[in-house]
């Protein structure tokens, strides 16, 4: 993705396309990676509501995979995940290991 020069921008700094930030992937910021352990998941969706980066995908009301293109690896989802019988459904692992 090539950044535009100022001459290419509409006058008055108007951005015409809503939600265009999706073209900017923030996943490379991540130092830790959340890993979903499906068998411990009770589908409470707390990870989805609390993720600051909208990086938990939900389809038809059910949590699916992380969206690693955007996940910044903060760990909020892992901390808030109740899991099943004290077994977390999200754990954090060091990126690149």
């Amino acid at each position, binding site marked *: 993705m090539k950044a535009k020069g100022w001459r290419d921008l509409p006058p008055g*700094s108007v951005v015409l396309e809503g939600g265009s930030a999706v073209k900017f992937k923030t996943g490379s910021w*991540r130092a830790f990676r959340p890993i979903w352990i499906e068998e411990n998941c009770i589908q409470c969706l707390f990870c989805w*509501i*609390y993720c600051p*980066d909208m990086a938990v995908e939900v389809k038809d*009301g059910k949590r699916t995979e992380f969206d690693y293109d955007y996940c910044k690896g*903060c760990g909020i989802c892992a901390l808030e995940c109740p899991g099943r019988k004290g077994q977390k459904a999200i754990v954090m692992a060091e990126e690149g290991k």
Partner: protein
Amino acid sequence: MATPLTLKELSKKEDRFTHGHRMCSGCGAPIVVKIAMMATEYPVVVSNATGCLEVSSCISEFTAWNVPWIHTAFENAAATLSGVETMYRSLKKQGRFDKDKEVKFIAFGGDGGTYDIGFQSLSGAMERGHDMIYICYDNGAYMNTGIQRSSATPLGADTTTCPAGSVIPGKLRARKNLTKIMAAHDIPYVAQASPSHWLDLAKKIQKAHEIKGPKFINVIAPCNRGWRSKTNDAIQLSRLAVNTCYWPLYEIENGVTRITVTPKEKISVAEFMKPQGRFKHLFSPENEGLLQRVQDEVDREWAKLQKEAKTD
């Protein structure tokens, strides 16, 4: 028009605040914003005061906003939006805007942009009676420019302009109670909320949209950079803020105060402060008195609120 406030239903909606924004990893503000934006079906127009949220959510041609959004200067998010809302009413009156379509207006500002520099424009917009919600995301300092104290910075907190050291033990003044100041404007709805209590927050937003006139909602928004805490604890810390009664959840509707969430057990404010580096010095013996003062302030405010509140 009301969205059913269950996570399952909410998760089916299109994001009005998208990923790809550049707030720090684990920042509390985008959690506040996403919940606020998903809590209604109405078309919404947003104005945003300069601050972390504003500069990180729209950079060059990349905007995380999927609704009409106006960047304003630091001091005038409320004034700008009041102008937009007035234009909307005027166009409707002139028959130049679909009369059956209802648009809602939200201004977002940080604590610096709300308690301090944007206070005059906020107070004016509320007094003039504009039909809008002003949401302050309060992280307790001017974070975007490097953690300078604001009038929302808590007593004893270390910031770059009230640095804890041998001269002073952090901020010497208590925070100003902006929620109560807004209530003193005698507007129809004022509330305090926290992202940890997402349903309480969403209900307050939904309710505020149904009330005509000016509304103000103050939402705590942990900032791990300025609070010197971990990237994973924004929700945990905002929950502790509620359970210590440092940040009580309540609303004032037409002058009637109601506590919306009462902690099962009110815990010591130190539990909220301990995980935060900005309060580290308060746990050394020479600052015992100041730590006690923080607890006393919290207890006094909580007692006052309970006295004012209507018990159901």
